[in-house]
């Protein structure tokens, strides 16, 4: 009886650890295959959906901002802060 539960434990370990290993190995293969298929057969499409996800580049206007206007930037951000601190009381 005492041997029996230890046996059950050993079996559980062997089959459990085996399944985990087999399952994750198959998953490694499946991922590798998926990535390879996507890269090999649908290479062009990849960039398009990426772009869809980037949601309007906010960088563009920022780059038109003249360098050296550091003072103005400071003033404006101070105004923003002041404005926010006023309105955050609500």
């Amino acid at each position, binding site marked *: 009886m005492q041997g029996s539960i230890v046996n059950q*434990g050993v079996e*559980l370990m062997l089959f459990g650890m085996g399944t985990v290993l087999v399952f*994750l190995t198959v998953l490694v293969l*499946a*991922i590798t295959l998926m990535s390879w298929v*996507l890269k090999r057969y649908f290479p062009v499409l990849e960039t398009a959906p990426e772009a869809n*996800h980037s949601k309007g580049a906010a960088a563009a206007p920022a780059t038109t901002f003249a360098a050296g206007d550091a003072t103005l930037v400071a003033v404006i951000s101070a105004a923003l802060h002041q404005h926010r601190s006023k309105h955050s009381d609500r």
Partner: protein
Amino acid sequence: MDNLLSLWNDSGLAQMDVGQGIMICIGLLLLFLAIRKGFEPLLLVPIGFGGILANIPGAGLAYSAVENAIHGGDPALLLELGKVLGVAVGEQSKALLSAYGLGGAEAKMLATQLANDAGFSNGMLYSFYSVSIASGVAPLVIFMGVGAMTDFGPLLANPKTLFLGAAAQFGIFATVLGAVYLTSIGVMDFSIADAAAIGIIGGADGPTAIYVSSILAPDLLGAIAVAAYSYMALVPMIQPPIMRLLTTEAERKIEMVQLRPVGTREKIIFPLVLLLLVAFLLPSAAPLLGMFCFGNLLKECGVVDRLSDAAQGSLINIVTIFLGLSVGSKLVAAKFLDINTLGILGLGIIAFAIGTASGILIAKLMNKLGTTPVNPLIGSAGVSAVPMAARVSNKVGLEANPHNFLLMHAMGPNVAGVIGSAVAAGVMISLVGG
């Protein structure tokens, strides 16, 4: 005067026993650790508070209507309950409680009808537990939310790290062995199902541990959940010594190759690939991994941001509140203050340690066998405990080499560990639970 007596008899001080006092202190300790020491506060604050509520003497918040009737009913009611539960007249409430616990569905229903008719009802925490955990819903919904917060990018960029996530699950099964060994030598008294539920602490994944315990060992759920979350919070203390012991300075300095960028489509297809593998190979893991993949698909597919935000925001927060209180309801003195709890706490930390060590050793092996360099420190992240274990890998790595940023590399085994322990959970439910 009768009223004064009734109020006093109803008061906590008159009904308090030592065990309840100890459990309330344990609840306060959990709150202290969560609030002051930052131990997984999102779970341990509700669990600790629920533990205090569950042990309020006389309130019966963690008991079912029948249990409350057995504690507070008059002899006539106990006699009737004894009849439907098949317990001989004159026996004590303990026999009734045990008969109720073991009774079939029909006996339980009849007993509940009697208790309701006598004015007893389910305690608040018992209701929360029934709806959230006994039904299995809460851990699954939280797993969905975790899926919606998980980025599989690092794993997809380097799929081999899945082996590290697999290796670290050895902690689970070694602990099962430990638990059955302790039982076989008579120190503890665990069934094989108990042992499996205790082992899952080594999975270092809260919802998985709660889900498995609720199926295999509901009585041990409180101790298992507390151990799982406490040790997850202690990962920054448990892991580094083991990591330093098993690696050389040179190994810790290894810099890994920059991960390739992973496309949106790979991230969308991955949860479906994982789901199909689960469907074909291990259906018993389908609830856990199915909800996990669903959450991840919601996040990655990019067209249902409303649902993704709900899954990782309001829904998971709401469910966490009730899950935590419900786990707390299992911290009643009668069940928690037991030698088995000490066994669970001891075995749990061993599980973490073995899982950490296995991950590191396999990482060293991969480094020896493969061509691309693998820093063995990322192996310890395979136990999951997302994202704490990955941060620990990064920190220990930085100590050895200040230019060595392992965080993203460790995220691969880290999320692999979540999948690995869910697979282990499925195997154990399939082999032991049926």
